[in-house]
């Protein structure tokens, strides 16, 4: 699927704000509900923060890429880098909650690499309305 939006920028912490704003514009165009946008922004922020903190050695500036597409009421966001990949890091400065948080917020999460040697976190978010609660009315 060709992404509707591709954003490539230096993997720096301050650039995560640009990604969040770009997602806001994307959500405007596709009428994504505000509550869902908050989840998407949080999950994508975590994925981007992983790139900023872990993907590249401290003395190397790398690229962070965010690709977003919308199809059949489902928004797919991929966060890519060309760094050292996802691997255990005992000296990690974070709490290690990023991927768990992404998994909690997204419908599906896939981690991987491809032939272009990039590392990718692929998240999907369903924009379909959840059915009303059936509490007290079940069999």
């Amino acid at each position, binding site marked *: 699927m*060709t*992404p*509707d*939006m*591709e*954003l*490539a*920028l*230096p993997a720096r912490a*301050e*650039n995560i*704000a*640009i990604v969040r*704003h*770009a997602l*806001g*514009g*994307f959500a*405007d*165009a*596709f009428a994504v509900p505000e509550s869902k946008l908050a989840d998407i922004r949080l999950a994508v922020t975590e994925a981007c923060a992983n790139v900023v903190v872990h993907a590249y050695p401290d003395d190397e*500036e*790398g*690229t962070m*890429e965010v690709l977003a597409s919308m199809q059949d009421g489902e928004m797919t966001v991929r966060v890519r880098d*060309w760094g050292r990949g996802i691997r255990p890091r005992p000296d990690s400065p974070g709490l290690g909650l990023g991927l768990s948080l992404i998994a909690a917020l997204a419908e599906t999460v896939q981690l991987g690499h491809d032939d*272009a040697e990039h590392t990718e976190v692929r998240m999907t978010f369903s924009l379909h309305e959840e059915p009303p609660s059936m509490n007290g009315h079940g069999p």
Partner: protein
Amino acid sequence: MSGTATSERESARTASVTRLRLSAGPLLRPVLCRVVSMVLTRADWPLDRLDEALLVCDALCAPGARDSGGAGSADGSDHIGRKRLTFSIQADEHEAALRVWELTPESAERLVREAHLPLVGNVLEHVAERIAVESDPADAYTRLTLALSAR
């Protein structure tokens, strides 16, 4: 990015360039304006110049957004013949370069020509310090460069 991926990625790697590729249509304006406003805000641009830069974004996005509403071609391309538009923005506290990539010479000239507003004139020519339509010998495409000043 796909397409001219490697060279673009390399240049993004070595400079503080933000690159954006968007489907032609209603996505253009909200995303481009937000990204450009964030980049210029971080570069400490004054509000009036930021406002003018957003006018430039509006002018660049108007053709694609307008034609996707039903008047576009059957293959989904906009009236300058692109299904997708690629932009880059690079800024410091003094100046910014906003580029539109992967154009043909005709589409680049048309983008400039159609930025004309009644009573105002050509928005791009009013706001930009310099407008350049450049072809890279190593690339089949043409790019439109708008040099903007923070002063």
